[in-house]
């Protein structure tokens, strides 16, 4: 997941004069989101956004635990647990969770990232009491039966094959993360190493669940045809008695921030053999974490370089008279405690990967002056503004938007600050970030191609 779909409001350009330290609540809000926010005494954060256009609502439950919180031997635990959370609890019979949700006219799903695990449901309004109760129940009462655990182990392995082992782009991403973040908590795959998936035990997963799933490590978001007052009563009723746990915070505190930062001291080249008749590639660099001032400049830099038809790399390599790549993109992937800037794509037949890499590296280092211009930065800001509205078309989109910010920044309205920061960025700021990026001594270059000799993972 790319954490911050970048945004910017031209409306704010002229009107906002607050400094970076201004609380977000005092900043203008182009979205006019009337969010009710409250916290239970056990630490659980709740956000409510009312919208009565349709008799439905979206519920998002964020847990601050993901791939980075695992260790060798239990890689993939967050994701495996996500699967198991749809099995039974003390109050829901085995495998009846989905029957209960769908039988009540709803749907449910979940996703796991390096930093978070998120469960979400789209439901008719009449089910609010039921579903708030269900989320409280599975926060503390999960039951993992042996046969269901083993069945789900098979399913997760099939998912791994689909996403990575039989997908050149999956291989590319997996290996890039492993190399760039080698030795850090981000250096393991979210879905888990295959050896761990085969050996991890039910007890290990259950302990992991008990360690991380607690009200003070969760944010509940409700958007749709609900009333904040009613939600408050229901949340108190179902979650109010649950005990806070201090384990997550203790675990986090024991890992210094520096442990998450990539340590790539020299260029790394990896050529994986895979089922791609033309080379697919990814070039990556260490980047700043979410919320760091440098990350905002890197966001704009990446968009100017490789986001959209008119972007620098697309024009040079894709839409030129002699295209060297069929596709190319640049992206800034910001994680909670680190980041990765990447350029990826697929070469056209006959283009040598090593020659292309050499040319790309040269191009990137010169692009800080040629691609980062006043016009291009304004263009990116305009794109962010329109893109902001596009992603908020549904209740689910809104719930994810404010829930992401609450979980990572402790402030659902943090987007107002983001707007302010983007607004303040100058050509010099972005050029500086660009130059610092490509002056780094190390980067990771990975290709997947049927003509490579390296073994695929």
């Amino acid at each position, binding site marked *: 997941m790319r954490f911050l779909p970048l945004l910017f409001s031209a409306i704010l350009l002229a009107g906002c004069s607050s400094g970076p330290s201004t609380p977000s609540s005092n900043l203008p809000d182009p979205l006019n989101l009337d969010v009710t926010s409250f916290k239970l005494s056990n630490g659980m954060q709740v956000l409510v956004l009312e919208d009565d256009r349709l008799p439905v609502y979206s519920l998002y439950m964020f847990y601050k635990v993901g791939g980075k919180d695992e260790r060798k031997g239990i890689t993939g635990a967050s*994701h495996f647990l996500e699967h198991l959370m749809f099995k039974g609890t003390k109050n829901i019979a085995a495998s009846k969770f989905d029957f209960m949700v769908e039988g009540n006219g709803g749907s449910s799903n*979940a996703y796991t990232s390096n930093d978070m695990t998120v469960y979400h449901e789209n439901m008719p309004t009449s089910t609010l009491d039921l579903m708030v109760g269900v989320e409280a129940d599975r926060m503390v009462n999960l039951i993992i039966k042996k046969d269901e655990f083993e069945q789900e182990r098979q399913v997760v392995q099939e998912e791994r094959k689909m996403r990575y082992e*039989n997908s050149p782009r999956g291989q590319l991403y997996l290996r890039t993360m492993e190399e760039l973040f080698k030795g850090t908590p981000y250096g393991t795959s979210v*879905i888990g190493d295959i050896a761990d998936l085969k050996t991890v035990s039910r007890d290990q997963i259950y302990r992991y669940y008990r360690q991380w799933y607690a009200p003070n490590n969760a944010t509940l978001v409700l958007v749709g045809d609900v009333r904040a007052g009613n939600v408050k009563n229901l949340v108190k009723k179902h979650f109010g008695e649950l005990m806070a746990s201090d384990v997550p915070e203790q675990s986090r505190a024991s890992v210094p921030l520096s442990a998450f930062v990539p340590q790539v001291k020299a260029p790394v080249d990896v050529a994986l053999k895979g089922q791609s008749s*033309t080379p697919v590639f990814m070039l990556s660099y260490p980047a700043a974490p979410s919320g760091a001032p440098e990350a905002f400049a890197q966001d704009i830099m990446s968009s100017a370089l490789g986001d959209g038809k008119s972007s620098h790399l697309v024009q040079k390599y894709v839409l030129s008279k002699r295209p060297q790549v*069929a596709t190319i993109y640049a992206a800034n992937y910001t994680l909670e405690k680190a980041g990765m800037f990447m350029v990826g794509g697929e070469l056209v037949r006959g283009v040598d990967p090593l020659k292309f890499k050499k040319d790309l590296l040269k191009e990137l280092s010169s692009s800080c002056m040629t691609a980062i211009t006043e016009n291009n930065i304004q263009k990116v800001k305009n794109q962010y503004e329109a893109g902001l509205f596009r992603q908020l*078309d549904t209740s689910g989109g809104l719930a994810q938007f404010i829930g992401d910010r609450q979980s990572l920044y402790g402030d659902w309205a943090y987007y107002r600050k983001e707007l302010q920061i983007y607004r303040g960025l100058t050509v010099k700021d972005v050029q500086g970030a660009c130059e610092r990026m490509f002056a780094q001594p190390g980067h990771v270059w990975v290709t997947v191609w049927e003509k490579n000799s390296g073994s695929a993972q």
Partner: protein
Amino acid sequence: MGHRLGEKFRERAMKYLILLLLSATAFAADFRKDDIQRLQWGDYKTTWLEDKRFPLATVTMYFADGALRDGAKNAGTTQTALDLLFSGTAQYDQKSLSEFFDFYGVDFSHNVTHEYSVLSFSALVKDLPAVVERFCHVVKEAQFPRSELLPHQKRSLAKLRNLPSNHSALAERAFRSLMMRGSSYEQATEGNIASLELLRSESLQKRWNELRDEAPKRFYVKGPKEALFIRDQFLQKCGWKTGASQDFRLKNPVSGMGHRIFLVPIPGANQAQIRIGRYLPASEAKDPSESLSFASDFLGGGFTARLIQEVRVKRGLTYSIGSYVSLQADYGRSGISTFSKNETVAETIKVVKDILEQNTNSANIKQEDIEHMRNYVVGHYPFSFEGSDSFLMQLLMLDHVEEPLEKLYMFPEKVKALGQREVAEAIRKLFTWDEQVIVVVGDPSLVGPLSKIRQVQIIKPETLL
């Protein structure tokens, strides 16, 4: 990472729900009905879906003319014409057009089906005058320069040649092509290697002129009221025309594709993609029924549907399985999509077969299971009205199949009337085993276990490109 099941089945089911509506006697709640206004913009019927929440508008042009017009030899012409619409005019080259539209944060999209084509853009309302001005310039003056076509061809061919690296995409292409073999719908709308190599600027120009000047068309607008101010500018500057209506629809029957398994060999794959389904000829596609949609959901439309429960939950054979039915105006398709590890591919197909055969007999369908799925389908139905852009596309498709808006609001009541007999009959119509085309994309060694199910025909990947 980690969605338990691809959302695409549900999205697909929702997308085509609108195409499956019958006449009805009762109305559901009129979700967002007040937001819809039918307008007349000059000679063109126009639909406005009001959305006051954000200052963003979407303008969509529907052309009742699609890839069928290309024919086999020129397959991909319509798609490429829209791909390259913004590649240059006498006044502006590709780069300056890209710069202009990107500067305003404009998002373009297009979709070419065999029956119709859609071109769409979204932009901030405040920018609409400038955006429409340049957009209409392109509509009138697009040139499809050879200098842009040649690199585009090179890129398109590269992507197509590398399609076998994406097993799921290859399976979809193979499934569609083999299921439709012998019909006008066999060719993929994006074309094939042979047809793409033949593309010329002149043919793209001619194709675009046909869409612009001859194809019957309708317009769709989503956004706040201020977005409607583009009306005169959009009509006058773009200069849309409509010529004499031409019958481009060709309804060739398809038969005899069942009783076989097509294996597309990918050496080294440790997981196989499986597709099972059939082509629905015009005679069946012209008889749409909410029972078909419901039957598809009953089998594979959610986590509690028959297929996911038997194949994934009880047996752990796959991560994802779902079924769908999609109907255009003159034909349709039913399908089941899944994958499994090499060792269990044959077992997975066998389990699917058993489920299909079991559920074609109404005596094997429990009324309580129907009640459960009905609650799911009806309860979840309001979400299909939620996203304005997707709702707008539903309205467009409703018009394409020439159904009145009221049909949209009758679906829940019709579903409530379905019983075991209707559901079994619909499953029989869609998924009678002997009529199913089966496509497997996976390791060549699978020919052994698959041969025990049916005769296997090997289809080399390159013959599908």
